[in-house]
């Protein structure tokens, strides 16, 4: 039996976003919320360290066949010849699927264009002879073994009639395009006459910063195991958007939504890349055609060919300041490469919209369309590279002003959001700087560059601001199931790709319902569960929080009903009570209490099941909500070779309440390490002659290795955000923001050289 919320009702005691606070904040420090913030080890940890956590490519099926792909070798044109005979004749081959025999499928819809849209691109998948990017799949081979499939795929040959293609950014940028909006925000923001103010400013910085393409390169290769039973489709995916994937696949194959089940309990890293790309669609289509279950696991090259990454940007930041370090003008403009078929403009001006006070502001970004694989969201899209430009420029300004860069930030700290005018829900950036500076030993930094050395190694320190917005996605629901034995299961179709979702939610639910950790189970990763939100934009924790708050309200109201007139709770309503000690009690009267088990027992109920959907995120409309941080970096730069080593790093964050000290620290560190890669080693080489990615391998795309990473220290304010569920803002992405600038600023402090093109490779410092 299930009770559902009445979304329209606004009863006393119910959380009203932007008006009231999550009642859990009231319980902070009280018994029952003690689990929050504790460094609880990952609940799935023992499974993972034993190799027992089953990933998408690890589900066995009777009659399973293996897929391999062949890719186009031109960027744009038509396939004029496609010879599959040799592949079809190869041993073990079950099927060769091309645009000629693929089932008819609707094209995916662009993510955010509808509630079920999951497409990174809206191009049809293997439906025509058209080629839109170099590396587009042109054939799928199914065979009895992976070895057979791979070999047969290598035998597919194609001939093309090429069409003119824009594969050079320098060409593409000649005809820039202004988007209607940047993820729902205006593409241009102007306050006053910023260019005029810049010209008249006492001190000016006006520079161009460039960031290259990046690829997520989660270590798990993209994979799916798919099986049809009649018109029912079962997909084991590696996914960070389960419900959207199910809805989109239903749409593509013309199925009722409930005919598609997607699950993804473990994901071997996502970072924005584990969304819906061609491989899942092709695997489903080939499985349908062959009448057999299919496993597809992309090669690493395949991941580079068909899973988009972060696009390149060219950004101008211009700052005009008075001699005492106030901003008269703040300009951040630029351009990013994109395709005509995707929705990811890399919102690099976003951090500048909220960080600093300035008398005049101009923010604008455009895109340059190229014939390439759709670019997509990658950890802190926009903010990661936007903070590189902005925070390097701030450092350059501090240098010109002769001010400590932290002091400059103190002087331009705004009282309210500088572009929206909204109040901040909670902002403790300067606290984060001060705590971080003290711990890091910032006072030992020499003001002038090139002052410290150890043999051939020049040593420098740098800092930069980290920031990432708070978002709470609407539409997520949660179900609470309470058994007579006091066990609680909370279910919602969300994701844990290593962020620590499940562990933090167990802690959250234990705290919210006042039950021991051991009594809580968190179910996730399956579309048969109540609809969840995507794991993206650092939104999942707050979004789950909103849904669990709503479900808890229904849960309490149902229990109060069941408790009836013979309970110490008789006559009390939601507004009067709180959950504690395994039951419900009067907020102000310790004597009025009844345990969950007692209520169910007296009501003769074996269990209680409640489900509710989160209230709309009104707090985002009323407040400017962001996480902040101060990144501190020490580098050693060889004066001989230009090699850069990050020797120390500290991140000091203001991200609201931290739900799990251990897993949150790992999230922050993980972001910082990806930021070290962004700063020093990572770049996807896109050949402008062919539109083909050249370094499509982990040997040639350099993600940081152990030796690149020092011991990293993490601090956090742990100040709850009064507007956020649990007081917690997202933490998955902020770690990477500011890192590029902190490293670059440290390199400047060490060497006296400003490097404005990422990555900071040694040749730029020789």
């Amino acid at each position, binding site marked *: 039996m299930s009770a559902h919320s009445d979304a329209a009702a606004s009863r006393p005691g119910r959380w009203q976003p932007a008006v009231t606070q999550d009642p859990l904040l009231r319980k902070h420090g009280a018994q029952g919320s003690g689990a929050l913030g504790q460094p609880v080890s990952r609940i799935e940890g023992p499974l993972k360290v034993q190799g027992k956590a089953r990933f998408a490519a690890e589900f066995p099926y009777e009659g399973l066949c293996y897929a391999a792909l062949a890719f186009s070798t031109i960027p744009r044109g038509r396939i004029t010849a496609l010879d599959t005979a040799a592949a079809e004749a190869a041993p073990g081959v079950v099927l060769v699927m091309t645009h000629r025999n693929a089932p008819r499928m609707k094209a995916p819809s662009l993510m955010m264009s509808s509630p079920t849209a999951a497409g990174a691109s809206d191009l049809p998948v293997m439906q025509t002879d058209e080629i839109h990017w170099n590396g587009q799949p042109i054939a799928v081979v199914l065979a009895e073994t992976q070895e057979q499939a*791979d070999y047969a795929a290598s035998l597919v040959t194609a001939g093309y009639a090429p069409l003119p293609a824009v594969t050079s950014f320098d060409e593409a940028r000649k005809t820039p395009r202004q988007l209607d909006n940047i993820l729902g925000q205006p593409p241009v923001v102007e306050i006053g006459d910023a260019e005029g103010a810049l010209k008249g400013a006492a001190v000016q910085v006006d520079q161009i910063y460039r960031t290259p393409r990046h690829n997520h390169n989660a270590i798990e290769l993209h994979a799916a195991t798919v099986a049809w039973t009649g018109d029912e489709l079962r997909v084991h995916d590696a996914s960070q958007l389960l419900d959207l994937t199910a809805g989109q696949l239903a749409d593509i194959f013309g199925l009722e939504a409930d005919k598609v089940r997607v699950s993804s309990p473990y994901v071997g890293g996502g970072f924005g890349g584990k969304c819906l790309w061609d491989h899942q669609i092709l695997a489903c289509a080939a499985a349908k055609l062959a009448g057999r279950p299919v496993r597809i696991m992309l090669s690493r090259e395949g991941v580079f060919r068909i899973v988009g990454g972060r696009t390149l940007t060219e950004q101008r930041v211009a700052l005009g300041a008075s001699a005492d370090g106030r901003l008269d003008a703040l300009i951040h403009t630029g351009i990013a490469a994109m395709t005509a078929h995707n929705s990811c403009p890399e919102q690099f001006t976003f951090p500048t919209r909220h960080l600093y006070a300035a008398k005049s502001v101009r923010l604008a970004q455009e895109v340059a369309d190229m014939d390439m694989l759709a670019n997509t969201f990658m950890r802190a899209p926009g903010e990661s590279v936007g903070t590189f430009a902005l925070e390097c420029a701030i450092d350059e300004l501090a240098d010109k002003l002769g001010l400590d860069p932290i002091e400059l930030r103190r002087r331009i700290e705004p009282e309210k959001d500088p572009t929206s005018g909204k109040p901040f829900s909670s902002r403790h950036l300067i606290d984060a700087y001060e705590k971080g500076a003290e711990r890091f030993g910032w006072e030992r930094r020499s003001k002038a560059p090139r002052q410290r050395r150890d043999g051939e190694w020049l040593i420098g320190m740098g800092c930069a601001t980290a920031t990432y917005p708070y978002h709470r996605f609407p539409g997520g629901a949660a179900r609470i199931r309470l058994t007579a034995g006091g066990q609680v299961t909370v279910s919602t179709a969300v994701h844990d790709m290593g962020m620590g979702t499940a562990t933090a939610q167990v802690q959250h639910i234990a705290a919210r319902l006042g039950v021991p950790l051991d009594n809580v189970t968190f179910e996730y990763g399956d579309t048969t569960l109540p609809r969840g939100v995507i794991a993206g934009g650092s939104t999942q924790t707050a979004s789950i929080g909103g849904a669990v708050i709503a479900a808890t309200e229904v849960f309490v109201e149902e229990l109060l009903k069941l408790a009836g007139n013979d309970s110490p709770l008789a006559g009390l309503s939601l507004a009067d009570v709180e959950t504690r000690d395994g039951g419900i009690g009067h907020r102000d009267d310790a004597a009025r209490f009844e345990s969950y088990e007692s209520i169910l027992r007296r009501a003769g109920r074996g269990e209680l099941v409640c489900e509710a959907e989160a209230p709309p995120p009104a707090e985002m409309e009323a407040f400017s909500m962001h996480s902040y941080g101060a990144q501190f970096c020490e580098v050693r730069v060889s004066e001989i070779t230009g090699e850069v080593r990050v020797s120390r790093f500290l991140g000091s964050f203001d991200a609201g309440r931290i739900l799990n000290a251990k897993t949150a620290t790992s999230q922050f560190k993980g972001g910082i390490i990806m930021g070290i890669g962004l700063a020093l*080693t990572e770049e996807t*080489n896109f050949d402008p002659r062919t539109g083909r990615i*050249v*370094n499509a391998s982990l040997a040639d795309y350099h993600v940081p290795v152990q*030796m*690149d990473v020092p011991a990293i220290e993490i601090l956090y304010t742990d100040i709850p955000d009064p507007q956020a569920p649990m007081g917690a803002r997202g933490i998955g992405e902020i770690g990477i923001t500011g890192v590029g600038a902190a490293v670059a600023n440290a390199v400047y402090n060490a060497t006296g050289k400003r490097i404005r093109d990422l990555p900071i*490779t*040694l040749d730029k410092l020789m």
Partner: protein
Amino acid sequence: MNPFSYERAADAAAAIGLAKGNAAARYLGGGTNLVDLMRETVERPEMLVDVTGLPHGIEPRADGGLLIGASATNTALAADSHVRTHYPLLARAILAGASAQIRNMATVGGNILQRTRCRYFYDTAAACNKREPGAGCDARDGFNRYHAILGASPACVATHPSDMCVALAALDATVHLDGPDGPRSIALADLHRLPGDRPDIETELKPGELIAAVEIPPLPFARRSTYRKVRDRASYAFALVSVAAALDLAEDGTVRDVRLALGGVAHKPWRASAAEAALKGRPANPESFRAAAEVELAAATGLRDNGFKIELAKRTIVAVLGDLTGDEA
């Protein structure tokens, strides 16, 4: 991966017999490069002859040199006490390469015969004269940060990726071969070829020949030797430039003898003979080192992305020789 047959050879004679007359046969050592290339369909052997059962001993010679069985693993060679004491540059070069896992698998013979990591060589959609003679070279005007600054040709600008071979080149190692026409020996420095107009022919090996052993002559002053590798990340990456060096100083502070080789700069491990000649008898100081480096790199030319390697090579030479001068071991 193409279908192939697999044979395990008990000794060199058996291996040579198995591969004899079969142009599509390949000797398989640790497989760390060959298997990768087979998966990319760059290599398409029809027969693999596993030679890991061939001699892998590492034996000091009466004259103070060292004889290394070709199937010795990279790890075994780097960990060998004689190598660590007498040829530290060789131990350090090997340890600078790849990862511990790969060094555990890779053999000495396979390391010598590994092929370039040029991405255009790996990508069968790209033009590559090494993979397909006459097809052209996409690297010359493409991404060529890792490519050659010395000895390149219009046909090919690839580099040899080995670290170990750079040290072996500096040590005047000899490679003992065996084949259908019997055993013979060749200096390691002569084994690899410059690309010229046939970059597909990478070594002087004749059809069916295999590497049986590597011999390093005695070099007492190699106790004062080292290897420095400059790369784009702190570990587990191929060299942009590397320098193997051994230095023998006279009482008066001049260079009595010196060995110098460069990695990451050419189609073969680059023995810096011109620099060596320029150094002998000169005072061991940064000015001499720099002058010698200038001589060695005088003919170097840069491509779009790798011009910096000319100066980087010079600086690294100076730094490595400087370290050896200062280190009174």
